[in-house]
């Protein structure tokens, strides 16, 4: 088995007026990577490149050990869940299966029906009658019914209530009980990743800001707060520094905390704070 589910190296791509620049990250097989960034940071453009829907200007991409462009059969191993439906809205869920099953050699009709039942999706319902959460579950059902080894989720929790988001995390947990399964989870809601992500790649303005195991990333930075006159040390890089009349706040590399002067509060940042501060810094 190949060690890497996804390898992206020095990827440049253009979509309209938006540019990805020198995007690189690796997702080892059997793990979950959170792909985080603000809206418009480049997450969907990167995912389109990974799925072969967008041709890169430069760089290399490998998915499940195969360099892109690859044989379309590779997509049998990839399940994709997007933040919007890509199915005919007037199809009933039974028709969804009839329409898509012929494309997959490993389609498992029994599993499709079992998952619909498990997720309490009525096969007689039309796609357009599904709630946002139900549509996300249908996407997962389709991906699992053709036995995908890699799940690519693009903003799957966008618009979901906390209970549905929690359920998704639980579903992904079940998917990952097989060591050969991997997940790339793109989101701007970083709290979703706190529990499930093993690796995190932060992207902003088309460039990767950081890519590391989640705990390493969280340990690598500190959130520091001080008075309005603090956080001026010249040999410290203050990321996303915000200063107002009542105080100043910034993210700093953990290794630079010793160089700070003044009466400061130093905390371990959340993923959300890292994403926001890194975005501000750029």
């Amino acid at each position, binding site marked *: 088995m190949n060690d890497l589910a996804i390898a992206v190296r020095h990827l440049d791509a253009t979509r309209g007026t938006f540019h990805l620049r020198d995007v690189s990250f690796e997702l080892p097989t059997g793990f979950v990577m959170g792909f985080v960034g603000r809206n418009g940071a480049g997450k969907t453009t990167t995912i*389109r490149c990974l*799925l*072969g*829907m*967008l*041709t890169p200007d430069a760089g290399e991409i490998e998915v499940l050990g195969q360099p892109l462009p690859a044989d*379309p*059969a*590779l*997509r*049998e191993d*990839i399940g*994709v869940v*997007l933040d*919007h*439906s*890509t*199915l*005919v*809205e*007037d*199809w009933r869920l039974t*028709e969804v299966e*009839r*329409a*898509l099953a*012929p*494309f*997959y050699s490993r389609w498992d009709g029994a599993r499709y029906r079992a998952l619909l039942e498990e997720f309490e999706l009525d096969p007689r319902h039309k796609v357009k009658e599904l709630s946002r959460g139900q549509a996300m579950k249908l996407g997962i059902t389709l991906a699992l019914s053709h036995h995908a080894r890699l799940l690519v989720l693009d903003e799957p929790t966008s618009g979901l209530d906390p209970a549905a988001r929690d359920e998704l995390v639980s579903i992904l947990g079940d998917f990952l009980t097989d060591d050969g399964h991997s997940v790339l989870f793109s989101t701007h809601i970083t709290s979703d990743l706190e529990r499930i992500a093993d690796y995190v790649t932060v992207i902003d303005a088309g460039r990767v800001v950081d890519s590391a195991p989640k705990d390493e990333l969280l340990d690598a930075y500190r959130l520091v707060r001080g008075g309005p006159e603090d956080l001026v040390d010249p040999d410290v890089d203050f990321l996303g520094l915000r200063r107002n009349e009542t105080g100043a706040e910034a993210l700093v590399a953990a290794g630079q905390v010793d160089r700070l002067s003044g009466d400061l509060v130093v905390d371990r940042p959340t993923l959300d704070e890292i994403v926001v501060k890194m975005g501000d810094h750029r």
Partner: protein
Amino acid sequence: MTSSAVLRLARLDVRSVAPYRNAQVLLMVILAPLLAAIWGEPASALVMAVVFATFLAAYPFAVADKNDLDTLYGMLPVARRAVVVGRLVFSLGLFAAALAYGGVATAALATLMHRPLTAEDAVMVVTISFAIFALMAALQFPFYWAFGYTKARAASFVPLFALAFGVGVVSIATGQDPTGTFPGAPSAALVAAVSLIGGTVALAVSTALSVRLDARRVR
């Protein structure tokens, strides 16, 4: 690109349009023989069925646009070219269905109205119908693949109007009714051959162009 992938995509097109247009299909099924009977022209049933199929052939583009099926095609394990060729196969299947239904309706009407069609008439109607269908599809599909249905809908009617305009000009210049028989018109065999070969070549060239245009659009 495999032939099985093309056929699966043609079937996907059938399933995509299946929830829609049922009322229009039913209307065509009733109206085509009814109007042909009223006009006293059995062959009009076939022509109407084919003209209806010509318009219905664009419907998968409309459904795909509305439901973002382009993204779905990108996620399926099929080559992008197969999507374009599959759409052609779907439209040819639609033509065959219209031809079968229109043919049966025309034959039934001809018997009932005691206006039997000669073999020559039948060949002419079928081959000219194919040429019209093929020409319309060949002219419209590249627009849809290049720009998407919503953006290209208006532009895609330009060839239809150009065709109608051309027929009108020829009609005025020759002083002949374009639906009638031209004196000294070429033989039925020649018209049939030109219609079949011309239609097939137009579809082949159009599909090759569509593959390129589609690849550029989804790039």
